[in-house]
């Protein structure tokens, strides 16, 4: 079995296990369809802190601590941490994990960050550089709105294609043994730009990247969508899903039977008024921890391709007239 497969994928010889996972979310996510599956629901949007940014940091710390507490006995303590968030210069991460005193690799992949963290964590474990590695990410509705859009109290109308930033944090511990779900392969994604400039239609901005990574993954591994129970994207939302299915069809893959999107799973868009779905780093991370992983561990799903998606923009790039490119990372998670 080759390790380096196809154009941009990796197949792990000794696939690392996800030995524990933790999810913590805000009140709105707790009221959503997955509400009962999360480890913890934080009713206070400030999480007992003074600012949105500190609140997001607190969520990261809680999720990381919880995941480490849930680790099976007998494993050495976590050695390295891969984490990132949406805020400028990764402040939610730096201030959130400071007290954990773990060597940190800070990552930015917009809302695809957990994909990047899981890939690098898996590579670190497979490479033998550490026995236990923590992959972590967070997002917060308040801090994201403040940074990317408007102050929360500002009155305005969100377009129907807009998504709602998930408040929460997801954490995963990877180790060479000790779990029921393993990361068997990864396909890191490229930056894909179809020239769209609408930052409030992020699903449409990211769908081409998701399509690129999924199709490349299937080609690299010589598989078909039917080889997976589900192909689950991060936060394309309903508009992005429509586009992804169309784009994949053009490239000869029918994903309609196999596709799920974390952004569409986490909220009830009708009742919760979230429009196209959920978004943010936490969207895919908490859905993986609370909903997808348990199904794989129980062998209800045998093999899943988890594809967190990110829209690569800042308010500067947007105001300077740049388009909104996307990125998506593919992580194969299998029962075993």
């Amino acid at each position, binding site marked *: 079995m080759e390790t380096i497969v196809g154009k941009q994928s990796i197949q792990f010889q000794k696939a690392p296990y996800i030995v524990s996972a933790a999810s913590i979310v805000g009140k709105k996510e707790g009221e959503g369809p997955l509400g009962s599956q999360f480890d913890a629901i934080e009713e206070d949007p400030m999480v007992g802190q003074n600012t949105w940014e500190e609140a997001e940091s607190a969520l990261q710390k809680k999720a990381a601590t919880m995941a480490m507490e849930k680790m099976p006995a007998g494993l050495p303590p976590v050695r390295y941490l891969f984490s990132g968030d949406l805020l400028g210069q990764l402040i939610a991460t730096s201030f959130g994990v400071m007290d954990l005193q773990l060597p940190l690799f800070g990552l930015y992949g917009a809302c695809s960050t957990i994909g990047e963290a899981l890939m690098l964590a898996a590579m670190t474990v497979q490479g033998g550089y550490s026995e236990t590695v923590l992959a972590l990410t967070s997002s917060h509705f308040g801090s994201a709105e403040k940074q990317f859009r408007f102050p929360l109290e500002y009155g*305005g109308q969100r377009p129907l294609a807009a998504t709602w930033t998930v408040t929460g944090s997801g954490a995963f511990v990877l180790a060479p043994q000790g779990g029921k779900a393993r990361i068997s392969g990864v396909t890191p994604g490229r930056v894909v730009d179809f020239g769209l400039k609408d930052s409030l239609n992020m699903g449409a901005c990211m769908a081409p990247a998701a399509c690129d990574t999924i199709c490349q993954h299937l080609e690299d591994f010589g598989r078909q969508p039917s080889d997976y129970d589900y192909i689950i994207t991060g936060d394309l939302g309903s508009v992005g899903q429509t586009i992804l299915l169309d784009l994949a069809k053009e490239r000869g893959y029918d994903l309609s039977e196999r596709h799920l999107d974390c952004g569409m799973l986490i909220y009830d868009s009708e009742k919760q008024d979230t429009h196209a779905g959920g978004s943010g780093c936490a969207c895919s991370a908490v859905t993986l921890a609370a909903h997808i992983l348990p199904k794989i561990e129980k062998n209800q799903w045998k093999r899943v391709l988890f594809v967190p998606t990110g829209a690569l923009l800042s308010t500067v790039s947007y105001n300077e007239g740049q388009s909104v490119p996307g990125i998506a990372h593919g992580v194969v998670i299998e029962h075993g």
Partner: protein
Amino acid sequence: MGKESVQTMKEFIEEEQKQQYNEYVKQVTPTHSLPMQMVKAFVTGGIICCLGQAILNYAGSLGLEKDIAGAWCSMLLVLLSVILTGFNIFPGIAKWGGAGALVPITGFANSVAAPAIEYQKEGQVFGIGCKIFTIAGPVILYGVFTSWLLGLIYWVLMMTGVL
């Protein structure tokens, strides 16, 4: 020269594909119903204007001059909007009523009060001081500029005897 033309051709194709994608996205992206939005904006804006008129009439009945009554009307609507913003009620009204809530002075007040609340945590100077007009700033700048321009035109027309 040959190399250059190849590159331009490639760029041209890419541009065309991007344009096609933009058009396709426009087709599949749902939008709010415009007539419905207009009705809601009409109702919301209408209520706010009626409220303003009621204040104006009441102030007038107290014997205030028209200018002073107008100032009271604006101030009270601004106060109301700021209070509703502080209690996070205004965003709900604006979400429903759209331009009906945003175009009157209530929208302007909200656009100043909201950053003041949000950025208060970054300090009195760099937070509130620097960022209070992040949304209303353009309105103030270009509003003042436009009135200056119109004043200039008015002055020129006066001087040349057209008016």
